[in-house]
């Protein structure tokens, strides 16, 4: 074969393959359900999920154990970059007062709920809303995808959360859910009165990591920014093992003292 023939053949094969790839591109872009000639509706956030977060997850408490598994000691705010105003609040915390308080859920708000030992149930409420529920404290968070607009209303414990997918595809399991939460009511980062204010905002990344035995581990990186009570963004990460079903789901009300 001459060099010229070789180049011609190479070009022909390349063109054929490029054509084939281009022809298949729309189907690939549409992902699941992309086969067939009919025009496809744009994929919903649920359909586009690069990672499956749904199911039951149990917290694995290997970090900050004495701040999470038991009621921490008054004035122990090790690791939290508090402002002087926040320290004053934490130092004034009184478990006897908290026990009688009408609001027992101050430590169950969005910035701290994933530090409370318990189980998560994650489901799709609809094609654009992912729902996260906790059995400890019986809280519900809604993660809204797309052009969702928060309704006017008072600040709440779980705030308003908008969500978007990041990464994933090409056979990798590196996708993540990015959640941004605003409109929070003030609460506690830890049950011993370590506060965050209503000016706090939250950014989280939910991702599933494959454990050495092949089972999934949900890892959530939680960044809380609060110009009033935190000197710098407070960053922690919590992890959860997947459970086969809800057999151990045990709803319990909030408790300010346990």
């Amino acid at each position: 074969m001459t060099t010229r023939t070789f180049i011609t053949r190479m070009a022909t094969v390349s063109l054929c393959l490029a054509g084939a790839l281009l022809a298949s591109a729309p189907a690939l872009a549409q992902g699941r359900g992309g086969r067939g000639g009919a025009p496809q509706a744009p994929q919903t956030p649920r359909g586009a999920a690069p990672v499956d977060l749904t199911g039951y997850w149990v917290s694995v408490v290997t970090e900050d154990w004495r701040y999470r598994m038991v009621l921490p000691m008054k004035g122990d705010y090790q690791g939290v970059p508090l402002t002087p105003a926040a320290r004053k609040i934490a130092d004034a915390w009184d478990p006897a007062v908290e026990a009688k308080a009408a609001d027992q859920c101050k430590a169950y708000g969005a910035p701290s709920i994933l530090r409370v030992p318990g189980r998560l149930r994650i489901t799709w409420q609809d094609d654009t809303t992912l729902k996260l529920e906790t059995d400890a404290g019986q809280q519900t968070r809604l993660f809204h995808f797309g052009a969702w607009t928060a309704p006017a209303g008072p600040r709440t414990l779980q705030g308003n959360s908008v969500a978007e997918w990041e990464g994933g595809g090409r056979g990798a399991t590196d996708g993540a859910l990015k959640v941004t939460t605003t409109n929070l009511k003030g609460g506690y980062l830890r049950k011993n009165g370590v506060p965050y204010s209503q000016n706090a905002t939250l950014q989280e990344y939910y991702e599933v990591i494959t454990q050495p035995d092949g089972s999934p581990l949900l890892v959530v990186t939680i960044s809380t920014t609060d110009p009033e009570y935190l000197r710098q963004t407070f960053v922690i990460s919590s992890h959860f093992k997947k459970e086969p079903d809800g057999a151990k789901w045990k709803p319990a009300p909030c408790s300010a003292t346990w």
Partner: protein
Amino acid sequence: MSRTSTILALVLLLGVSLPARAEIDLSGSWASINHEDAMERGAGPNPADWAGLPFNEYGRAKALSFSQSIISMPERTCWFQTQWHIAAGPFSLRMWAVPDPVTGRVQAWVVGAWETRAPMIIWMDGRPRPSKNAPHDQTGFTTGRWNGNELVATTTHLKTGYMRRNGAASSDQATITTHFRRHGNVLTVTMFMVDPVYLTEPYIITRSYNLSTNPVSIGGPPCIVGDEGVESGRVPHHLPGKNPYVGEMTKRYGIPLDAVMGGAETMYPEYRDRLKDQFKHPSSKCALNCGG
């Protein structure tokens, strides 16, 4: 020849038309965010506090025999920090890629050393793992692979080291798996310690880092052995039942002894049911290692 040209064309086409294997740049200085386990990673954990650690009875017995004075032995001064020190210590990370000088491909990723932790060299070139009988050391042998934008590193060939810096030890049979995931300027590192000798379940730790423009040291300072006058042949230790620190967590924080002795059950929410009636909330205000 025709077949050869077709194959070559295919290779060339795939090379130019498909996206490069997903990788994210992890290089740079990553400042450690010590907001969780701040005391454990900084000054060090309380003695005899192994709550949340999935010990078996051998792991617990070894930890109970531990005396911090053991590091005054010259041969023990630098022994305890394996690659797990990324999780157990407070230090920032410096990461960089090492290119193959001929192909330019990344041959290895390196997580620079800090004090007694040797650099983690994550070989990306597919080299085989050494024989299980090859020498073990604090560095270990680490290989890596990309899962999209996630770097997954597996470390074996370690010597015995700290799992927690109060005597909780990992054995030379341990395997550490480290997952590096970057989101913007935040790096989340998830580490799994699997140890058939001292653990009943993997010990899982997650840590976060901020990308920093302040350069993190790439290699030191080194651990230097000094003579602290320890009598030759003396090995600081506690005999069974004689560890004087066993009651300290109960005294200081009201946490029952059963909990601080660790075990996999202490990692899960159900354990709180067992704790509830035994836990005594301290009436005093925190006076030591309280943060802020």
